[in-house]
């Protein structure tokens, strides 16, 4: 950082320059506080509920899943026994890519980075005896969202839940998968169509279920700054909304099934301003662009968590401290759900011990530190209100530029967005390596003698074999005629442009596999052809 008269110049990652002192005049110059509103009221700058954490503290939902459904079920029970109030499910890569465990491409990957799911029976085992409306479940599934959501709904229905009352979330944000994370399957256009099917299905059949959780998170991990993270997520949400609206649904009726997922690493104030500005801008865009009047449809409900990109492989115990600050950001930002990357997560799937430390971090914040005392505690701060206004302006600029360039979907199809974000990732990595962007333990305060004792999560080949055996057993015992008919009906629905969700649910019930359902859809839509850009 350069210095002017001995005073350090400060810029946020989003590019905004920070003054040494803020006062009443700064707030007025940036646009004033006229648009902050009251908590629980349009435009929701201060939060989406009038009483926020006084009435309902944030849900704690650590990302977890590995091996088989049985093994993951055990970890779920451990987390719940330790006070976790929701589940955030990690699937293995074959499941996420729509492959069965016995697919040749799945070799060596079954159960490795998440839980392996092939059929409804696996889903039933994973969530056995877990009360689905008390411990709400978030499914981290995108490319294969249709089969997995169908299996989840089929499981809930089989257990006697009324879908109209079922709560929970599917990540199901395919557009961001093309920018970062990479579990796409179908071409962009058809992928958006499938997200549209799930939103429409939920709006009509499971209105309390969050059909998609639009993720700024992974776009930030891929190199976007915080203002871009929020702006791109809003643009993606608008793309889904435009798509579903074009089917003749009212935005007032379905926008409430959308939720969001954001990242929390970086500068504390910048992230909090990002959340306050983003919440406001989302509500305003819905009003401006779609004339939405229904409050629930304009509320940005969110999980704000993770922070993986901020954690370091060096001196991993420092990540416990970073996690505590990230959790603070999340609470000050007014999140509904919180999750933290665990301190060992730069190395491995978190150990039970590391996951517990993350959970305790959030619990200490909730029960000891007073973060639930009052709503939006930073409101009215000269600094925070000024920067909330400035971040909102910055986000609007980015969205306007995207619109002028043909929209986010086109930007993703051509690979332009991916390329831009990656250029920034490269520039940031260079700044870290040169020491210009400081990271403790990485480019300063380096511990040469460092010895870390991280317990690596074991990968057991036997579990993959067990999973494949289980899949074969299900294929043998199921009624093949019914499974074939349901698969054919799913393919026909896709061919005829119908909503595929009801057909996927039927298929799930007669034990059609994730791979078979995906293949039926690939037969119709084809596969995504990745523009190889960097």
């Amino acid at each position, binding site marked *: 950082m350069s210095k002017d008269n001995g005073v350090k110049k400060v810029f946020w990652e989003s590019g905004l320059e920070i003054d040494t002192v803020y006062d009443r005049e700064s707030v007025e110059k940036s646009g004033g506080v006229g648009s902050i509103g009251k908590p629980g009221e349009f435009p929701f700058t201060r939060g989406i509920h009038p009483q926020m954490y006084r009435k309902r503290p944030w849900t704690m939902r650590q990302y977890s899943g590995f091996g088989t459904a049985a093994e993951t079920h055990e970890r779920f029970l451990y987390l719940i026994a330790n006070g976790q109030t929701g589940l955030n499910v990690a699937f293995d*890569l*074959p499941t*996420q*890519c729509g*492959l069965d465990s016995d697919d040749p*491409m*799945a*070799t*060596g*990957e079954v159960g*490795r*980075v998440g839980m392996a799911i092939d059929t409804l029976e696996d889903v039933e085992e994973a969530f056995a005896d877990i009360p689905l409306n008390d411990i709400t479940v978030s499914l981290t599934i995108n490319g294969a969202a249709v089969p997995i959501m169908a299996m989840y709904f089929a499981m809930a229905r089989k257990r006697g839940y009324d879908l109209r009352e079922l709560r929970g979330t599917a990540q199901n944000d395919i557009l961001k*998968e093309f920018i*970062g*994370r*990479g*579990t796409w399957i179908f071409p962009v256009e058809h992928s958006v169509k499938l997200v549209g099917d799930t939103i429409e299905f939920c709006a009509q059949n499971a209105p309390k279920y969050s059909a998609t959780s639009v993720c700024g998170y992974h776009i930030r*991990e*891929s*190199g976007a700054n915080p203002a871009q993270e929020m702006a791109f997520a809003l643009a993606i949400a608008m793309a889904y909304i435009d798509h579903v609206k074009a089917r003749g649904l009212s935005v007032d009726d379905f926008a409430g099934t959308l939720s969001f997922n954001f990242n929390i690493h970086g500068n504390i104030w910048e992230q909090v301003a990002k959340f306050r500005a983003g919440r406001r801008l989302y509500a305003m865009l819905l009003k401006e662009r779609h004339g939405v009047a229904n409050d629930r449809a304009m509320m940005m409900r969110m999980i704000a968590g993770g922070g993986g990109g901020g954690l*370091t*492989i*060096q001196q991993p115990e420092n990540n416990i401290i970073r996690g505590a600050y990230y959790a603070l950001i999340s609470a000050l930002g007014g999140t509904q759900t919180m999750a933290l990357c665990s301190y060992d997560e*730069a*190395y*491995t799937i978190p150990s039970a011990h590391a996951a517990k430390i993350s959970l305790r971090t959030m619990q200490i914040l909730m029960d000891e530190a007073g973060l639930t005392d009052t709503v939006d505690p930073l409101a009215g701060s000269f600094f925070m209100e000024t920067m909330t206004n400035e971040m909102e302006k910055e986000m609007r600029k980015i969205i306007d530029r995207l619109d002028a360039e043909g929209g986010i979907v086109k930007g993703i199809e051509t690979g332009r967005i991916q390329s831009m974000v*990656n*250029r920034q*990732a*490269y520039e940031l*990595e*260079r700044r870290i*390596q040169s020491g210009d962007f400081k990271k403790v333990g*990485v480019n300063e305060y380096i511990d040469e003698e460092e010895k870390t004792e991280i317990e*690596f999560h074991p*990968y057991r080949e036997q579990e993959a074999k067990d999973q494949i055996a289980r899949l074969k057993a299900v294929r043998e015992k199921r009624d093949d005629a019914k499974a074939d008919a349901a698969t054919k009906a799913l393919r026909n629905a896709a061919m005829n442009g119908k909503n595929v969700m009801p057909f996927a649910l039927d298929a799930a019930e007669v034990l059609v596999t994730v791979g078979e359902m995906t293949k039926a859809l690939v037969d119709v839509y084809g596969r995504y052809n*990745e523009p*190889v850009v*960097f």
Partner: protein
Amino acid sequence: MVRVLIAKPGLDGHDVGAKVVCRALIDAGMEVIYTGLRKTPEEIARIASDEDVDVVGLSVLSGAHISLAENVMAEFRKNGIDDVMLIVGGNIPSKDYAALEKIGVAKVFGTSANLDEIAEFIKTNRGNSSR
């Protein structure tokens, strides 16, 4: 000019590091080809051969690095590719470095590897390429 293929084997979708390394190698004056995601060892060997590269860099963050590197080496042997240097990057536990080197991997670069050192290593070991 040194020709490098950066490849993503397996199903892992974490490609930020791979693309950052692509940019760093280009800035260091090399020709770089990137495969994109989800390539099989067969595909990687075929591209390496078709593009006549000097170096293949595998990027793996899923934990499946040993079996993937083994399979890529097996494909190299099957196709008579014996003049290509294989390097591996990603979140590779240090305990696995020796196993990878035994397979024939020339060098492993962890998640916070210095970009200039990666370029330097390639230049030192393949910089005299006559191509």
